[in-house]
Structures are given as C-alpha cells and as structure tokens.
C-alpha cells in the first residue's frame, strides 16, 4: 500500500479499518512517546490491566509495571534513545505486568518503534497467565512423573534384590538338601552304633569292635561329603602338562570296580597327540563318566571309550548302552546337586564340567532314553603340538 494515491475517502476508510483492527485485537496495544507517556491504548488494554483510558493516557507507562521494573523503565528508555541499544524493542520478551488492583501477571511484550510525525513506541501485550499456568502444570506433572518413575525404579530394584536373595536362598536350600542326605546318613549310622554300644545288653567284644569301626568309617564318609562340596566350590587352577591319553584312560578304567557283565573298550588311534592337561584333575572327570555309565547299566552292557583328534583338541567320547535319560534329566544332569541316584550328592558331572571348562574345553552329553548315553570331552593339545600341526 502506498499513501501517495490515497484519496481523502480512502484515507478515512483505511483509518477506520486500522481502528477496527486495533480496537478488536485480543492483545493489548499501548502506544507511548519517547518520555514514556502513554498516548493511546486499545480496549484490550483496559480489560487486561483494569484501567480506563482516562486513567492511563497521559501517565507514565511504568504504572503498568511492578517494582523494580517500574523504577528502571525510564532508565531503559533513556539508554535506548541515547545508545540505540535494544533490550526489548523489535525483539519481544516475557515480562511482568501490574493491574490496577496491584496484582501482577506474566505477559509477552513486543515493542515496535514508529515515527509518525514524532517518535512513538507501540507495545503489544499478550497475557500469558494461562500459558504460564499450563507450563507450571506441565512442569509439576513432569516432576510428579519423575518422582513416580524413581519410586517405581526403587520398587523394581527392591524386587530384583529380593529375587536375587530368594534365588540365593533357593540355591542354599538345594545345597542344604543335597548335603542333608550325605551327612545325615552317616550321622544316622554313627548315632545308632553309639546307641547300640551304650544300650546293648550282651555286646560281644567283636560286636563292639564292629560298631566302633563303623563309626570311624561313617565319620570319614560324612567328611568326604563336606570335602567334595568345598572342593567343588573352590576348584584349583589346572597344572597342565603333556599327558599320554591312552595311559590316562587305562589307569582310570582299572581304578573302577566294574561288574563282569560290563565290557569296557578303549580306542585311542595310533598317533593321537598327547593332551595338555592336569593329570590329577582329568582322571576325576573320566572316573565320574565311567561310574555313571556303569550305574546306568544295572543289567550289564558295553562302555566304549573312543578318542579322535578334531582341530586343535582331542575329543574323547564315553558311550554306554544303558538306561539313557529322558530329555528333562539330560537338561539338568550337569547341575550341581542334581542326582537320580539314591546314593551320591549330584556333584560328579558338575565337577567334571567345571574341570573341563578350566581346561578351556567342553563336556557334552547326548542321550536316548532306554538306549544309552554318550558323554564327550574336549581336551586341549599342548602349545608345541598345535604348532606342529600347523
């Protein structure tokens, strides 16, 4: 729009239009002169601040501001007029307004400068109380949410801690149950022998000796149970050295009482390299596997021990054609204190697996119910041998 072509009628119409816009604006529109004196306000200003035009026009704008802004306003204006440095003009910011009744409210103020004959400043003021309230609400809700999240987190942490504690207790219960049998049976024998010795009406010297020997033997059994458990809890690091596999297997087999109905064969191919293992620990593994195989064949059967070099290790399989295991037993068979036997703590395979793992190997099981089981052990080769193979 340019003013040059405007006719007086156009001008009147445009003035009326502008007045209409200003008078109906939702925002308060306030015009002041360079001294800060209010020269015009629109009706929204009256509603927002509670003053009539008569009370405001001709007064300093600072009447609409609370302390300390009111006191500082003259200085701001003078500073701007002197230095041209804008703090608010052309920028707009959030400030605080003061109503006639003295109450204050947050408002957004945008100030523009215009020179219409004289220099004038127009402020457009929007009451942002609702916005601020909403913001405050949001902040409070956020805070509450944070609070709830941290409470819930604490609850979850507590629940998890409890779960861990419960699991520990469950493990403890399992251990206690496992030990109970292995300790209470010897205690039972000891206690009943003691009862006999104390109460028998006609105990011969031979009987007395028999019961004392029994007490002695059963104390050893109870002690063995405790030793087995503590050995398992702190298994020493293997002291590895090259060991001929076939010799190791043969000595293990000869150390186990096998009934005549069970046939054991050892097949270690000629040229199988020496294994690099702890010569005290590895026999424990094979003794356990052989005992299990034997116990799985109460009617007799065949145990085949076979070795084969696979990559950088030797794989030894101990296979029986005994009772085999159901899938749920297979799944649990290496758990400590799990046993299907009436005698024994259920530590054999757990210890065996721990030993093999300390040798960086693996202990695996394959079983078919009523057909038999095969346990496979991976044993490492010595460093030198590995290099030779390369």
């Amino acid at each position, binding site marked *: 729009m340019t003013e040059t072509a405007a006719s007086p009628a156009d001008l009147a119409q445009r003035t009326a239009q502008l007045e209409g816009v200003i008078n109906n604006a939702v925002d308060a529109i306030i015009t002041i002169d360079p001294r800060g004196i209010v020269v015009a306000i629109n009706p929204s200003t009256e509603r927002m601040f509670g003053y009539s035009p008569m009370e405001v026009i001709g007064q300093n704008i600072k009447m609409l501001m609370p302390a300390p802004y009111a006191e500082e306003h003259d200085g701001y204006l003078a500073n701007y007029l002197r230095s041209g440095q804008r703090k608010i003009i052309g920028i707009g910011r959030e400030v605080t307004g003061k109503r006639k009744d003295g109450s204050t409210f947050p408002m957004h103020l945008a100030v523009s400068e215009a020179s219409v004959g004289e220099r004038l400043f127009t402020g457009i003021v929007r009451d942002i109380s609702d916005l601020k309230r909403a913001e405050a609400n949001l902040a409070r809700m956020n805070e509450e949410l944070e609070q709830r999240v941290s409470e819930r987190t604490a609850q979850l942490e507590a629940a998890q801690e409890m779960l861990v504690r419960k699991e520990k207790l469950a493990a403890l219960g399992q251990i206690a*149950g496992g030990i*109970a*049998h292995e300790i*209470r*049976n010897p*205690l*039972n*024998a*000891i*206690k*009943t*022998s003691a*009862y*006999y010795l104390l*109460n*028998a*009406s*006609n*105990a011969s010297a031979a*009987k007395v000796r*028999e*019961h004392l020997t*029994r007490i002695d*033997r*059963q104390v050893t059994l109870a002690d063995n149970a405790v030793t087995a458990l503590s050995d398992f809890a702190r298994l020493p690091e293997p002291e590895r050295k090259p060991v001929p596999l076939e010799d190791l297997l043969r000595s293990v087999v000869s150390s186990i009482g096998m009934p005549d109905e069970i046939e054991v064969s050892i097949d270690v191919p000629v040229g199988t390299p020496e294994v690099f293992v702890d010569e005290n620990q590895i026999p424990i593994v094979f003794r356990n596997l052989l005992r299990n195989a034997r116990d799985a064949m109460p009617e007799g059967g065949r145990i085949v021990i076979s070795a084969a070099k696979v990559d950088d290790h030797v794989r030894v399989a101990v296979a029986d054609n005994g009772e085999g295991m159901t899938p749920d037993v297979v799944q649990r068979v290496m758990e400590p204190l799990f046993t299907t*036997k*009436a*005698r024994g703590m259920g530590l054999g395979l757990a210890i065996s697996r721990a030993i093999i793992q300390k040798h960086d190997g693996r202990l695996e099981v394959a079983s078919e119910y009523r057909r038999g089981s095969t346990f496979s052990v991976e044993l490492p080769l010595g460093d030198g041998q590995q290099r030779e193979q390369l």
Partner: protein
Amino acid sequence: MRKHAIILIADDDADIRANFSDILSDRGYVVDVAPDGHAALARIKERQYDVAILDFKMPGMDGATLYTSVKKMYPELVAIMVTAYAGSDGAQRALDAGVAHVLRKPVEMSQLLERVEDVLRQPLLLVVDDDQEFCASLWQVLRNRGYRVGLAHDQSGALERFDQRAYDVALIDLRLSPENGGDHLFQQVREKYPGTRTLLITGFRSQFQDRIDGLVSGGAEVFYKPLNLDAMLERIGQLV
C-alpha cells in the same frame, strides 16, 4: 502280641541295616533285612511281619512307593519310615499313603523303639467286606484310632488271614457273596477262632431280617450300614 514280634528293615545302607538289626535283636525282636524295595516285597510275601522300618531314599523304589505296595499286600503291617528329609514331599507322601510314623535321620533310637512297642501293643483287627472302597475308608478310620487293620474281600481270603494271624476283632459283612453269606463265615470263625470277637455289618436290613434275627438270638452283634461309626468304635474299644 506274639512272643517274638518280627520286624523287617528295608535300607540300602548296609551299616544301617546292621545297626537296626543289632539293636532290635538285642531287644528280643526277630529281624529280617532287605537292601531295597523289591527285596522287601519278596520278604513280605513270605513272612507275616509286625512292623517294617523303611528308608525313604532307596535305589529303584522309594520308601513311600514301597509302602503303597506293602499296604495292598498286607495292610496290617505297620510301617515306620526313616528319612534324611523330614517335612519333605516324600515324608508327606508316605504319611498320606498310611505310613504310621516318619522319623528323621539321625534317628533317635529310643524314640524308634518306643514307636515299635506302641505299634505292637495295638490290637489287630480284620475287616471282611467285598466293597473295597468301604474297606479302604474303614482301614483309615481304624488306623487313626490306633488299630492294626487287615483286610479280606471274600470268605476264602478271610479264612486264610485267620489261619495266619490271631485277630482280636473281626468285622464281617453279611453279604459277602451270593452263595456263601457272611453269616456262614461268622459261624466258622466263632467255632474255629474263639479268641476272635466278631461284629457283623450289613446294609440289607429288610431282606436278611430273618437271618439277622437268627444270628442275633444266637448272640451275634450287628451294625447296619450306613454305619454308626461312633457306636461301632466304642464297641470295638470294649472288646479289645
């Protein structure tokens, strides 16, 4: 009570078998041992034991399972179970099956001996009824009252039992079989085993009224089904 009560010990631990055996023998009991459940069942088929002391954890068959089989064969045999885990599922299962006592290892021998003596003092009853469920529930009721209870389901089975053991009281169902009624058995028992007191049970008051009247006038005592248990238990208590 017999002069020498016979006790069976089933335990897979040879030392425990030897100890129980030594202690009980020293007390004057006759003792047999079995290393597992199957051996125990074989023994029970051959001999009329008074008490069985069963280990819970044995290879092949646990003590609770063993007792379930024992009870079917020979319900008057009272079992005491010994376990490393009292309060376990196994102990509860044994008690549910009808094991009289569960003792925890290490066993307090004086307690075990006391239990054995208590059991041997319990009167011996025989229930003769073809209704097996009725027998099973009566067995439980009478066991809970502190009786040892044998069961027979027909006349020949009952006579076999009377040959084997001296029962203090026999409870005989009148309608054992169509051809041989309980009254026949009743007469036989009265003649052959005068030491046994006999109570008759019947569910057919009207049909057999003449027979019942005849028996009653001959001195028989009759209880009608549904049983007034309190009255019957009171009467048994007087008889033993």
